[in-house]
């Protein structure tokens, strides 16, 4: 900020503690100055009964855990569905109840659950709720009641989604993109109740998420503690913030397409339905535009990819910084890269539609924007690697997962560059190459971050450490297993094995594809079962884990600095914390310890050569 305003003594004047060359007052008082609070303390509702404390709870931390557990539950359902798919692909006709209809239903539900109900809810609902108030130094979310309603809307949405397994015809089998016209026509599995419940569930999810998203955005923008400028927030918060902003602007397109498709199904309007002849009979539909749905869907769908990826980027930056004991390289560049990716993500959606029959000129435009968005993404990868360069790395489970993330993300990102180019995409689209690409880049990579983040923040949530030994087993099973699943899929894609095929029958590539498919299936089963190590680790550590104490990782950011661990309702006890620096002051020359927490005033570390933040 400019100097001329620093001199004024206006009450609302921002004056951060970096103005070491202050003009008046005693030096120690001056360098520790943080301008006074603007807003009165937030009044919180304290629950008294079991129901208001644990069920309809207004504490963001409990809501975060509720989101987390619900999302993990749906994620496990999605995992089991993927096993069933893999069993059919690896060993056709081994399991008699997996018919073609069931296979498509599993594919659809696996995709939708994993993208929307698992990853989005977990990152924004779970980590967002838990970490935002703690990391920005707020007592709670700004609207605790709305936040509670948000979770229960999500819960109802999950219930509606799960209910679709039990209705006549089963869940929809239209593929997770739900493309009309086939999604709502007879012949597609679950084209009656299944698709309707799916659309209703998505609409409920959007409504519930909007309530939560308003909370996240406004807590970050308007309820930070004294001294917490935007450029002193941990990158986790930047990632979650930008992702939430994207969600607020992208989910409307999903809601609109859901409403229109529901009308197409229930009132026989023709928004997306062209004239169709079915079994020699002309249907009542006519004049609609199927490609419109694809545009609406991907106007939501592409930002959705970044809704999942950006929190992962943010969280992994913090984990790397803490466990490499080094400040994140290029913090401001990282922030602007996150914001830039967020902005650009609204202009790249049709690279999912190169073969859809859209305006042919679009390929040129969207390939260009897609390649442009690779630039800030690559910047982030370089910065993670430079952060690790000559760092004091702790090779623990968290760091292993971070390294796993970087490798996986680079892999998935590079195949993304292949697919972003029209000429390369056309032969590769709808093959297993695409499956491999997006599972690497937005399946495995964010999952690595989630698991690393669980190992990192478990001591904060429960007060106990997770077992390192089990954690390393878990990492190696997951990492190597995931690579054995998805690496061969790139090859399957190159030889032209199409995705979404129930069976290969007597195709010419059957010889080399069969063996690989069996291998992938076995790997998928092993990786899935190895998650039991993780679950066992969590459950057993709840009671027998080593007590963590305060700040076990020696981190700087605010969430570890609460008076009680795990933090109590209201987070901060009597007084809100006051922030003097960014959360990345690790191994500062001249400081006594290798970390300086965000609340340490400059007068206590007078000889340390800290970065000006």
């Amino acid at each position, binding site marked *: *900020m400019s100097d001329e305003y620093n001199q004024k003594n206006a009450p609302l004047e921002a004056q*951060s503690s970096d103005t070491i060359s202050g003009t008046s007052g005693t030096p120690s008082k001056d360098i520790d100055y943080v301008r006074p609070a603007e807003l009165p303390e937030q*009044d919180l509702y304290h629950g008294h009964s079991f129901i208001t404390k644990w069920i309809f709870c207004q504490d963001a931390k409990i809501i975060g855990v509720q989101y987390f557990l619900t999302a993990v539950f749906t994620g496990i359902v999605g995992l089991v569905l993927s096993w069933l798919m893999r069993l059919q692909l690896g060993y056709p006709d081994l399991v008699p109840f997996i018919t073609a209809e069931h296979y498509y239903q599993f594919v659809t539900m696996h995709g939708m659950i994993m993208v929307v109900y698992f990853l989005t809810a977990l990152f924004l609902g779970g980590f967002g709720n838990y970490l935002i108030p703690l990391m920005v130094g707020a007592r709670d979310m700004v609207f605790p009641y709305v936040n509670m309603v948000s979770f229960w809307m999500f819960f109802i949405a999950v219930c509606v989604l799960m209910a679709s397994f039990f209705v006549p015809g089963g869940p929809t089998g239209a593929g997770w993109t739900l493309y009309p016209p086939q999604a709502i026509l007879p012949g597609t599995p679950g084209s009656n109740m299944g698709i309707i419940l799916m659309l209703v569930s998505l609409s409920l999810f959007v409504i519930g998420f909007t309530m939560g998203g308003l909370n996240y955005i406004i807590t970050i*923008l308007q309820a930070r*503690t004294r001294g917490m400028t935007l*450029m002193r927030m941990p990158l986790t918060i930047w990632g979650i913030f930008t992702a939430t902003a994207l969600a607020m602007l992208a989910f*409307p397109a999903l809601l609109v397409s859901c409403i229109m498709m529901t*009308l197409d199904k229930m009132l026989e*309007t023709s928004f997306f339905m062209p004239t169709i002849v079915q079994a020699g009979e002309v249907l009542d539909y006519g*004049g609609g535009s199927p490609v419109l749905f694809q545009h609406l869907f991907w106007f939501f769908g592409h930002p959705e990819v970044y809704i999942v990826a950006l929190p992962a980027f943010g969280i992994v930056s913090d984990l790397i910084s803490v466990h490499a004991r080094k400040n994140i390289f290029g913090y401001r560049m990282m922030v602007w890269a996150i914001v830039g990716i967020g902005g650009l993500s609204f202009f790249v959606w049709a690279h999912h539609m190169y073969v859809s029959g859209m305006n042919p000129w679009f390929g040129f435009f969207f390939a260009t924007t897609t390649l442009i968005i690779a630039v800030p993404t690559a910047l982030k990868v370089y910065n993670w690697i430079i952060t690790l360069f000559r760092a004091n790395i702790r090779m623990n489970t968290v760091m292993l997962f971070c390294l796993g993330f970087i490798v996986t993300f680079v892999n998935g990102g590079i195949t993304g560059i292949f697919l972003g180019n029209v000429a390369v995409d056309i032969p590769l689209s709808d093959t297993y190459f695409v499956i491999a690409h997006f599972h690497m880049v937005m399946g495995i990579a964010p999952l690595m971050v989630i698991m690393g983040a669980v190992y990192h923040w478990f001591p904060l949530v429960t007060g106990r450490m997770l077992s390192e030994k089990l954690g390393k087993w878990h990492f190696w099973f997951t990492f190597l297993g995931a690579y054995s699943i998805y690496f061969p899929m790139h090859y399957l894609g190159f030889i032209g094995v199409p995705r979404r095929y129930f069976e290969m029958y007597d195709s010419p590539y059957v010889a080399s594809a069969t063996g690989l498919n069996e291998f992938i299936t076995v790997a998928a089963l092993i990786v899935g079962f190895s998650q039991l190590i993780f679950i066992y680790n969590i459950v057993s550590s709840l009671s027998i884990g080593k007590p963590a104490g305060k700040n076990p990782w020696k981190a700087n950011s605010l969430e570890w600095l609460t008076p009680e661990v795990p933090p109590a309702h209201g987070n901060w006890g009597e007084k809100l914390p006051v922030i003097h620096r960014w959360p990345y002051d690790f191994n500062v020359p001249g400081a006594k310890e290798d970390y300086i927490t965000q609340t340490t005033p400059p007068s206590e570390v007078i000889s340390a050569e800290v970065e000006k933040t």
Partner: protein
Amino acid sequence: MSDNSLNNLPGGFKGMSHDMGSDQTAFKGVQWGKVMMWIFLLSDTFIFSCFLISYMKGRTSTVVDWPNTSEVFSLHVGGVPVPLLLIAIMTFVLITSSGTMALAVKYGYEKNRKMCGWLILATAIGGLTFVGMQVFEWSKLIHEGVRPWENPFGAKQFGSFFFMITGFHGTHVSIGVIFLFIYARKVFRGDFDNGKRGFFTTMKSDYVAIEILGLYWHFVDLVWVFIFAFFYLW
């Protein structure tokens, strides 16, 4: 402008970089509830934009003729068809209610309880009139045979988009009317003068709630401006 400390801050883009670079709040002096309403309206703008973009795509790409809206929506006054008469009246009603709402916000901040309450009530009645006229318009079209799935005047999509977009807008108006009545009662009861705590929240009531309600109501009017231009005048 009353004298308060915000006036000491720089304005314009310099002020923007100052606010964004400062701690605690990014929007200086804007209450949480008001930011929430603004961000919600931004999200809602995207919903209506997506509806209208779909409408544009649907209307442009249909090969069946689109009905002539100024004939379809005309009213017969003494045997003479007057184009878009009802729509024009609806537009004026909505703008009137928007004006009364703006004045209600002003009187609310001046803590003029009576005036604020009556103006909110007037706004609510304006909104109710609008919804009533929309019901009349819908029933007229339904009598003429327009349905979401078919339309005697031309392209099928006309009925679909008409009922969906005006229906979604009408839902917004109806929700607004309900809240206007609730808030009129609250104003008359004096909740905003004595800072009574709300039913769902532990935060104190304040006249800023009237401005937040006003934002929503003006947004409904704003959307109607676009629907009027794109759906009726195109």
